[in-house]
């Protein structure tokens, strides 16, 4: 983890409401897949708190790392980030949290990545790593709707990496991919591919991840979920960002910090409410 001021290389508007922000971070950082940073326009305290963004991609350089974030403008913080321009300064704290893990236990060489909406950026670094290990990676991505000209964010990057036959999309209004919910799509895939050992990784809206967790447990597949929670600090001190997790050895449960113990957790331990 480092705390530094870095410069904006570019801030590209992908489509209305979506941006890809590239920062040059010195000294170099090595974000693990699923890790995030807390960022804000340098020296501006309105809004007060930094915003959490997951690392989308990273490009090592000489004495620095260029990192990409993809975000959707929601409120005050992300609107401010959307107005950043090349050469502007950004306060950066990261990499933070614990990302996705490939556990030796449990066999199989296929990974299903399930994303909803702006959960998709969490997966690119992970997909790259898994491909490098010769894991067969499939992405299932869903959103409410899609941009008429640009389609769904990030999907082209994944298609280039994984091959378009390994990327399946759904939208609730049918404007891109098939019409429906991504959770239905993955359920069909799991039924069709019955019996093949594999792993599931999910990142997206709460209801989607909850359903993916149910499917994972129904089909007996190890499932990891990348959670979100309102954060004040992002590095474990405020204890705001908690999620309830079952203990491994009893029926009891405890609050854990999403920023420090997560954001990636074993789905079977999460108590969804």
């Amino acid at each position, binding site marked *: *983890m*480092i*705390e530094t001021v870095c410069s904006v290389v570019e801030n590209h508007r992908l489509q209305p409401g979506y941006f890809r922000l590239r920062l040059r971070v010195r000294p170099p950082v090595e974000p693990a897949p699923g890790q995030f940073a807390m960022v*804000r326009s340098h020296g501006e*305290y*309105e*809004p*007060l*708190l*930094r915003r959490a963004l997951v690392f989308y991609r990273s490009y090592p350089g000489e004495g620095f790392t260029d990192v990409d974030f993809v975000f959707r403008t929601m409120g005050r913080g992300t609107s401010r980030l959307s107005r950043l321009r090349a050469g502007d300064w950004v*306060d950066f*704290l990261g990499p933070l949290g614990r990302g996705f893990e490939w556990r030796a236990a449990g066999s199989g060489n296929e990974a299903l990545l399930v994303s909803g909406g702006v959960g998709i950026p969490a997966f690119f670094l992970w997909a790259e790593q898994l491909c490098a290990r010769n894991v067969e990676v499939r992405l299932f991505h869903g959103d409410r709707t899609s941009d008429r000209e640009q389609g769904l964010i990030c999907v082209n990057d994944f298609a280039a990496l994984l091959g378009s036959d390994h990327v399946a999309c759904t939208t609730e209004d049918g404007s891109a991919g098939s019409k429906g919910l991504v959770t239905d799509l993955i359920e069909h895939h799991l039924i069709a591919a019955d019996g093949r050992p594999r792993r599931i990784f999910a990142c997206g809206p709460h209801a989607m991840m909850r359903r993916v967790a149910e499917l994972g447990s129904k089909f007996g597949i190890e499932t990891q979920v990348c959670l979100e*929670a*309102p*954060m*004040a*600090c992002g*590095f*474990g*001190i*405020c*204890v*705001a*960002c*908690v*999620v309830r997790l079952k203990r491994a050895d009893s029926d009891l449960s*405890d*609050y854990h910090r999403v920023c420090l113990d997560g954001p990636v957790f074993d789905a079977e331990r999460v108590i969804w409410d």
Partner: protein
Amino acid sequence: MDTAISLAVRLAGLEFKNPVLTASGTFGYGLEFVEILDLSRLGGLVTKGLSVEPMDGNPPPRIVETHGGMLNSIGLQNIGARAFVRDKLPVLRGYDTHVITNIFGFSIDDYLEVVRILNDGDGISAYELNISCPNVKKGGMEIGHDPAEAARLTEKVKRIARCPVLVKLSPNTSSITEVAQSVEAAGADGLSVINTLLGMSVDIYRRRSRMGTAMGGLSGPAIKPIALRMVRAVAQTVRIPVLGIGGIASWQDAVEFLIAGATAIQIGTANYYEPRVSIHVIDGLAAYLRDMEMSSVQELIGSFQD
């Protein structure tokens, strides 16, 4: 840095290298910051509030960002006093700074039990009693609002405490100076002023709180003017030193509190969004004294001109 300038202050019988401390609940147990800053530069740090047993805290969501601040309903989640003494204190002893442990309970006996546990620990400079946390339904609230009860608690803690005792006052009372006077009379060595202000935030679509609890504690720059007023009022009322807290995010803020009568200050919420803020405040304070041609921070304390 100019060696002629002294930032040192004396407080509750302790020598602080500078008057800049970090506030309870906003600095973890200190060790979370070692990658970000040198703890030994701080005048001191105040730990997250400790209870007898570990505590789970309130249901999420636990924070809501507000204009210039935030509301929290953390509910005092902590690892418990024993785990602190066993796991954190030995590491903290490696740093040259004052470690002050914040203490809370649901009865006077609870506080006393925490004090007994901490008395066994080596490396604690002072205790700070949180009599004011507005978050927990049955907790601190009453004690912090009742001068007699606050005095009873202070006196009992003082009787067994192995180090100086600070009492952290609640701003959610019309009688903060009364509480200040009564805990001073009961033997408090210093007063921390203020804790968070009770507030609410409403989700207009669900018509309920945007936190897991109906109310939360407001902190951050938004509360600074209120905190300053209370620091001054308390400093004018008591003879024991006051530690100013509330919305401090820059050295200029810190200077305001010192002028208003605080002997030292604690930085809270700003640690979240500016993790190195405490170091910036220490450096800025020294530069300010030099610019103002003052040789000691003592010249500043309580220098407010009516």
